[in-house]
């Protein structure tokens, strides 16, 4: 618990210290996408790592948030802030309604059902021409603004996104260490045993599904008001897989691991760009190596390094003291 809040504070320091070192909107734009994807991945980690439920449809909820925001601000000329709130409520509602039948399933069946859900949502984005602009998308989405500040430049948007992430990260830490968090971990270990201990398994599963969809929706709104354009292609099955990869690479039962996974998968292609044609090859190799040698993801590797160093220090201290 202490360690989690320590990392949280460290993250705050990094977020607010970063602008001292970087100037280019290019780096800001990468960091913005890390924050946006990071919010989705945080929610997904709560669902996958803590509640033990797989979702291959979260890009759909991400898209739902983006499209609700886009439609409410473009067609109904709503202010982006309330639009974001309405998008959040609507997406969570959709997740609850869809989650009631879906979450009765377990394991592979649940994965397939959520996969279908994501695909159906993307089809809706494509087919509702009047509302969503169809496959060619809709533009002209306004920027966020707070009295006289318009969040149109990358620096301001960086702060906005990361403040959202920091708040949601704090909420998640709180949740994980609460009664709910403990109940969730027991569910992920063994649903039947958890149920026999008086934990309302299906309710907790549904709660986490709704919560993670809410995270995705907020991220979607942030995406829509940054690009000021949405089209269905970033919200498809491949995006869901990408989010899941971020969770797994980071270490599915660690919140800060999830952020690490997101940062790595979002920024690595940029660093590897110097390798040009071999970029994908190296990228793939890194993913395979992590999966093979570090099944607990990056979080596992870092924990291991931390433990080893601590043990060494202890050993050295022992004879002296």
């Amino acid at each position, binding site marked *: 618990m202490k360690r989690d809040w320590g990392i949280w504070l460290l993250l705050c320091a990094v977020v607010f210290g970063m602008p001292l070192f970087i100037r280019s909107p290019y780096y800001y734009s990468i960091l913005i996408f890390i924050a946006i994807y990071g919010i989705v991945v945080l929610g997904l980690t709560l669902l996958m790592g803590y509640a033990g439920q797989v979702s291959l449809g979260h890009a759909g909820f991400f898209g739902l948030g983006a499209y609700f925001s886009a439609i409410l601000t473009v067609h109904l000329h709503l202010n982006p802030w309330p639009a974001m709130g309405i998008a959040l409520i609507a997406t969570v509602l959709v997740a609850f309604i869809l989650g009631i039948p879906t979450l009765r399933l377990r394991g592979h069946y649940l994965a397939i059902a959520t996969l279908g859900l994501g695909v159906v949502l993307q089809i809706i984005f494509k087919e509702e021409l009047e509302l969503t602009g169809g496959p060619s998308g809709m533009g002209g989405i306004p920027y966020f603004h707070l009295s006289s500040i318009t969040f149109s430049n990358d620096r301001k948007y960086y702060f906005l996104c990361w403040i959202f992430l920091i708040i949601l990260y704090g909420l998640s830490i709180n949740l994980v260490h609460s009664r709910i968090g403990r109940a969730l971990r027991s569910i992920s270990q063994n649903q039947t045993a958890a149920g026999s201990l008086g934990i309302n398994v299906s309710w907790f599963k549904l709660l986490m599904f709704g919560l993670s969809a809410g995270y995705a929706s907020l991220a979607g709104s942030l*995406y829509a008001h940054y690009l000021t354009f949405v*089209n269905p292609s970033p919200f498809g099955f491949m995006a869901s897989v990408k989010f899941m990869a971020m969770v797994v690479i980071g270490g599915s039962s660690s919140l800060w691991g999830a952020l690490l996974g997101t940062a790595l998968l979002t920024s690595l292609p940029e660093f590897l760009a110097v390798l040009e044609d071999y970029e994908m090859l190296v990228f793939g190799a890194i993913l395979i190596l992590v999966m093979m040698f570090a099944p607990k993801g990056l979080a596992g590797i870092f924990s291991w390094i931390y433990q080893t160093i601590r043990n060494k220090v202890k050993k050295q201290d022992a004879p002296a003291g």
Partner: protein
Amino acid sequence: MKKLALTAVLTVLVGLVAISVANTAEQAKETYKIGVVLDITGPASSLGEPEKQTLGMLAEELNAKGGINGHLIEMILYDNEGDEAKSLIKAKKLIEQDKVLALIGTSQSGTTMAIVPTVTAAQIPLVSCAASWKIIRDPETKKTREWVFKTPQSDSLAVTKIFDYLQKKGVKKIAIMSVSTGYGDSGRAELQRLAPNYKFEIVADERFAPTDTDMSAQLTKIKGSGAEAVICWAIRDPSAVVAKNMKQLGMKQMLIMSHGVATKKFIELAGDASEGIILPAGKLIVADLLPATDPQKKVLIDYRNKFEAKYKTPVSTFGGHAYDAFTMLTDAIKKAGPDQKKIRDELEKVKGFPGTGGIFNMGPDDHEGLTKDAFMMVTIKNGNWELVK
């Protein structure tokens, strides 16, 4: 030991001299940087790859001739993997880090739309290789976007060409078959918008998914609708299925397709069923059939021969879009020098430029510069293209 030291000193000296010589050469004429973002990998790789090849070939050629007014050009090319977010990141990198003069790209409308606000804010000219009119004109305000140009022909031009032809044939009732992608929807919207101008009645309007392998259901509906012509708006693969299904169902209606199938591969895929299909096509695929008086003929044949000699693959219209973008942009830089505002102004002044996509005549309110004459009506006969008389 002494010998070694001497050689080391000498090498360093020679190296220094070489660097300084190179430096002075560079200082004399600094390079012009052109940024390129294309969908090279991912779902639109069949568009991005020939575009990349074309640009590579043209840049090499231009530099071999001494560049633009003695300035060599440096083309910085990034792949956005068909992803909107990556497209935006790469465009920002080109503008902020690489400090390019102008941008070319991207290959798809979605990935271009993602960077339009950024280039507009940064005031960098962008020549897109994607087709949607929304790229160059704000769909809400109908105003031309100041900094954005595009080279592919708009769908409305193809639709006009088709409708002119159908009117000449005395057709009254038409049926639409369109694919549920950006391409299909854009075509469908234009068909619906322009049909009343020609007093055509749309008796059926069916859609299908790009991966569908059977369209008999939709075609059966059309068969009973009394349509005299079926207009199918889709890319290569599903269009071939439509052609085959129509033949299987014994439908005798005239079959019109969009320019999206104007590749040899389509004829291979559809086989016999492709015989007699009529479509509007850019002139690249029928370059040999054009009369010698056609001002585009020389450009088309030159480009095709060079491309096919270098890459050993057939040319495609997509590479042609990149050819037009590169040529117009470098011409504009030649006239304007390294000044973004002037480059934009020069792009707007392009007049009578024979490209692969048509004869371009840009203007302050026309950032596409093409008319329906950019298309020829062609038909497929004995597995080959033929001009429709």
